[in-house]
């Protein structure tokens, strides 16, 4: 289960994630943000309530980063220790902007 909340303000898309970003829900997230992503120059993910992320979720984050690259930035905020560890082991701390 993943709860996705989106707000778009002056080209800045904020996506609040709550639950699990796994094989099933990664597809939901990808589809959900596709329309806004076509217009957004920057994306902020709020991961305070994101419990878990698997490689399918990492794939969506990487694809999103590649999409906004060149026109803005992607930031992930409020990452929990469990999710941070996943970013660390996969080297994603080096390629994502965590706040």
């Amino acid at each position, binding site marked *: 289960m993943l709860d996705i909340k989106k707000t778009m303000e002056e080209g800045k898309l904020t996506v609040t994630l709550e639950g699990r970003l796994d*094989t099933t829900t990664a597809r939901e997230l990808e589809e959900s943000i596709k329309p806004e992503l076509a217009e957004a120059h920057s994306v902020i993910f709020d991961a305070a309530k994101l419990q878990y992320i698997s*490689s399918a979720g990492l794939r969506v984050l990487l694809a999103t980063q590649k999409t906004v690259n060149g026109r803005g930035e992607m930031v992930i905020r409020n990452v929990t220790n469990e999710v941070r560890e996943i970013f660390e082991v996969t080297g994603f701390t080096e*390629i994502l902007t965590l706040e």
Partner: protein
Amino acid sequence: MRELRLEARNENLDRVLGFLEEDLEPLNCPRRVSVQLHISAEEIFVNICNYAYKDSVGMALIRSEVIPATETEPPELVLTFIDQGVPFNPLEREDPDVTLSGMERKIGGLGIYMVKKRMDQVTYEYRDGSNMLTIHKRIAPAGDQQGENGSC
């Protein structure tokens, strides 16, 4: 030992994780270790779903066993994922380069890489027409210093 036999379809992922949770709850598993085990179970099961049977849907069997704690070691969870798909040893796959930049990065192989990095032991065997991938993880209860810091 407990067993779960089910069709290898991504839609069944929640059943696999529920099965795992039944082992973890009585062990008072720390959240961090629980996340590591959930990720490992997902990555292995989803690999079976996506690749083992090519375009058809086959079965997956998951066996779990909890080896009780000893005087010096916490309990150990042993999970074996079995399928009758094409022979494939994921441990032979080359590790992804996790130092590449975002633009150069590929996701392939990252799932099994996380499994290898976060489990205590991972073994593969092909026997009697079956792929058998087994993961081992010691689980010190939450609140126990060893459990919080873990072995990884």
